[in-house]
């Protein structure tokens, strides 16, 4: 360690179910350089200070979605948050809010995955096509209708930002509803009526109260609040017109 190297205090919320009954803060002093991410700070701790500190990470470039955590109370990807922003005050790192802590900075993602699986997140084609017929035609503008919502990396920061999910776990939540909208808005897909069965329920779009923080914390510029709230209008129209339209909407 050279004299010029700066040292920052990182407080980590520890929870080891085999040792602790509830989470406790543990403080570490970490030498750092200005280009070091919070993730690199945690790696330093694990490598050289305490090998028991546990967290998920992989790509280091904000695309795999593993390393979301609460950094000074804000949901962030630790790989693209930099230690220098917290110097000299230091920082506090906790597991993502609103989800059960499995261990240290690792949350139980099971609920998110179950919800993702529940919305039929795949193309159910409007008009089936064989491989020999080649690709579906889709103009750049048609692609723009859903592309943004397909950029979700499933990092769950939006769930940690959504108090409605925190208060009521039956709410499908921002990320998954944005993905539902992604498929509904895809010109190749023809199954929005099926998916909307969930969308029209309280567990769907109506569980949202337009807090909007999900869209603020999204590291990929997805706008889940928009995906959800623009569907409230559709749902309302469908609600009132379902008896007069020929198909009657969905149930």
């Amino acid at each position, binding site marked *: 360690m050279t004299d010029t190297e700066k040292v920052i205090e990182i407080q980590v919320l520890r*929870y080891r*179910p*085999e040792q602790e009954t*509830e*989470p406790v803060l543990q403080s570490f002093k970490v030498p750092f350089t200005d280009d070091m991410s919070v993730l690199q700070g945690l790696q330093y701790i694990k490598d050289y200070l305490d090998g028991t500190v546990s967290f998920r990470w992989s790509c280091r470039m904000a695309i795999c979605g593993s390393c979301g955590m609460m950094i000074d*109370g*804000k949901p962030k990807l630790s790989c693209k948050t930099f230690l220098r922003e917290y110097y000299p005050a230091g920082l506090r790192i906790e597991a993502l*809010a*609103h989800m*059960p*802590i*499995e261990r240290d900075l690792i949350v*139980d993602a099971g609920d998110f995955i179950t919800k993702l699986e529940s919305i039929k997140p795949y193309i159910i084609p409007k008009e089936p096509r064989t491989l020999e017929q080649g690709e579906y035609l889709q103009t750049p*503008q048609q692609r*723009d*209708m859903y592309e*943004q919502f397909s950029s979700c990396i499933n990092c769950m920061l939006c769930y940690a*930002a959504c*108090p409605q999910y*925190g*208060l009521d776990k039956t709410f499908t939540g921002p990320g998954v509803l944005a993905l539902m909208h992604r498929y509904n808005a895809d010109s190749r897909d023809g199954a929005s009526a099926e998916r909307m069965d969930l969308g029209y329920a309280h567990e769907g779009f109506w569980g949202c*109260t*337009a*807090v*909007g*923080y999900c*869209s*603020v914390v999204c590291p990929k510029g997805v*706008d889940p*609040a*928009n995906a*959800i*709230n*623009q569907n*409230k*209008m559709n749902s309302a129209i469908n609600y009132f017109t379902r008896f007069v339209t020929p198909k009657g909407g969905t149930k």
Partner: protein
Amino acid sequence: MSKRRPYVRSMDGWWKRDAYFVKYMAREVTAVFVAAYAVVLLVGLVRLAQGQAAYEGWLAALKSPLSLVFHLVLLATFVYHTWSWFNIMPKTMPIMFVGGKRVQPGMITGAGLAAAVVACLAVLLIVRGVAS
């Protein structure tokens, strides 16, 4: 035997945890003031139906300092309601294209706020016009 014991954190006082949540709750609380104003108007309407004396009692009450202060607070919360309403509006609209270009959220908010200013001015001018 699994040693898993997922720890669920409390949601108590969640709205104090983040400035964003404080702002959200402030927006939601404006509803209390909207309700209060609706009640003031409803009382005025009922008094109007009860006759001139009753109605003028209501008018006089409006002139009390307490009522004036209360309405100043109401005005502030209504302005905040207007501001926050159009701020969240881009989230509630489908993605729109004008001339092949995506309409940006800031434009929707800006248009909404401009519409509110125009509508308020129109109301003020019409009321003034009709009254004089």
